[in-house]
């Protein structure tokens, strides 16, 4: 039996839980006694925080160091127009406080790191991974395994999402059983070009919230050892059976990771975007001038077609999305002067590297891409 008790106000509030025998008074007390640390208060963290608070989880911790931006509101429903510019933790805390004054909310306006992860996570029963980058995912995984706490995982990409519960202590795999090492930097899916359907983190985040509530109350069959894949466009759920990897570097029989490491280094994070040699870079002002001259360069856009529909640099000669460049490199003339651009200069930097390796010498990356072009040359070009 749980030690905590429910007030009459709480009984009235949670009555739709209480009248289900699977939850009942005991399940609701367990929720009240339970504590959950949400890492990230964004797309996944929003529905998670709202539903866990509404459900009466007694203590919710929120970790985020970001600030609410107008472009978040398409999916991060815990925030609002009135909290744009506010730290996400504070914005979320206000909304949750209004939703349920009976619960305790602790906010950590900080970035979770190897130095503070144990301290942040130690006091919580369940860890929920609502992050958006590989270093934090590996950090969250490793720290959860080392502390013996379940890690409720969710991840989204455009119209697709994944969810599972990593709990080696209950016989399931951890994230590293699936992906022992991170993808090499610079060679990773471009969420970016992607974006995400606003409702998608709602679907995945509510799956995570459901699993969290099941873990705290001990009801149902947890999503341990199963990876749920969701495809919003096909409206299909697919389940993969997973298993522990006995050679897993963290939860395997002979673990090589026994303490937290430097996850930025592990994920190969360079402090700066890959440097491109000086002769391979051009500024928007230089390009604008060059495009006016008779010896104007060939202007190559390596973004995706739907980005072209948002904004483009006038005078673009050709579009080859970066992912297609290796296969379509023969369509380009290496004898001709060429400038490559994308939204911010990152993808085009990669394209320039690729072209250099293929023997192109007269190729330059437009520094800052469409964004800098808009700032420095033509503000009528939309920034996105």
């Amino acid at each position, binding site marked *: 039996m749980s030690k905590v008790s429910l007030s009459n106000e709480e009984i009235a509030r949670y009555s739709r839980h209480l009248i289900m025998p699977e939850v009942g008074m005991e399940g609701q007390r367990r929720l009240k006694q339970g504590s959950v640390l949400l890492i990230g208060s964004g*797309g*996944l963290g929003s529905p998670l925080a709202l539903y866990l608070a509404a459900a009466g989880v007694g203590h919710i911790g929120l970790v985020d160091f970001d600030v609410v931006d107008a472009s978040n509101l398409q999916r991060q429903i815990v925030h609002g127009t009135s909290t744009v510019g506010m730290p996400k933790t504070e914005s979320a805390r206000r909304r949750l406080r209004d939703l349920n004054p009976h619960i305790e909310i602790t906010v950590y306006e900080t970035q979770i790191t190897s130095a503070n992860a144990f301290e942040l996570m130690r006091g919580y029963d369940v860890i929920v991974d609502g992050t958006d980058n590989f*270093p934090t995912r590996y950090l969250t995984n490793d720290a959860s395994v080392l502390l013996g706490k379940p890690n409720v995982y969710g991840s989204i*990409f455009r119209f697709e999402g994944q969810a599972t519960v990593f709990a080696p202590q209950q016989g399931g795999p951890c994230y590293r059983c699936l992906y022992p090492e991170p993808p090499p930097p610079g*060679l990773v899916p471009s*969420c970016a070009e992607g974006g995400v359907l606003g409702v998608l983190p709602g679907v995945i985040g509510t799956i995570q919230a459901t699993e969290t509530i099941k873990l705290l109350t001990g009801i149902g069959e947890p999503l341990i050892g199963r990876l749920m894949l969701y495809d919003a466009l096909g409206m299909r759920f697919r389940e*993969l059976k997973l*298993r522990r990897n006995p050679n897993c570097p963290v939860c395997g029989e002979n673990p090589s990771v026994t303490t937290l490491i430097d996850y930025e280094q592990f994920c190969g994070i360079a402090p700066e975007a890959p440097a491109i040699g000086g002769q391979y870079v051009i500024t928007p002002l230089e390009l604008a001038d060059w495009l006016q001259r008779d010896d104007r360069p060939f202007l190559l856009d390596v973004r995706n077609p739907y980005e072209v529909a948002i904004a483009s640099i006038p005078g673009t000669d050709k579009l080859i999305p970066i992912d297609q460049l290796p296969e379509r490199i023969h369509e380009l003339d290496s004898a001709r002067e060429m400038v490559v651009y994308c939204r*911010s200069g*990152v993808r085009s930097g990669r394209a320039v590297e690729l072209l250099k390796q293929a023997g192109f010498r007269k190729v330059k990356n437009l520094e800052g891409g469409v964004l800098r072009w808009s700032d420095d040359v033509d503000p009528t070009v939309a920034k996105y």
Partner: protein
Amino acid sequence: MITIHVRLFAAHRDIVGRAEMTVQQETGATVGAVWERLVAEYPSLGRYTGRLLYAVNQQFAEPGAVLQDGDEVAIIPPVSGGARRIEPGQVCNRFNPL
């Protein structure tokens, strides 16, 4: 020859332009052989080699798993998640903001 149904996810769908495809393989072919064949056809996939989750008939599988006629192979790349703009070249943008 055996017929294998391949399911692709996330960024692989963009590279290949499809979410699923059917391929013919030699009898006794492995999961890894199916992947190598895809890489040969779509070189951009090559950068994911060694960083993939495979499943055969919805069960986790190693690259060395031998396939049977009619098997379904799911190949799942790591997805960092979130909805921030992460451009290729920026794996972990939180530490490397644009």
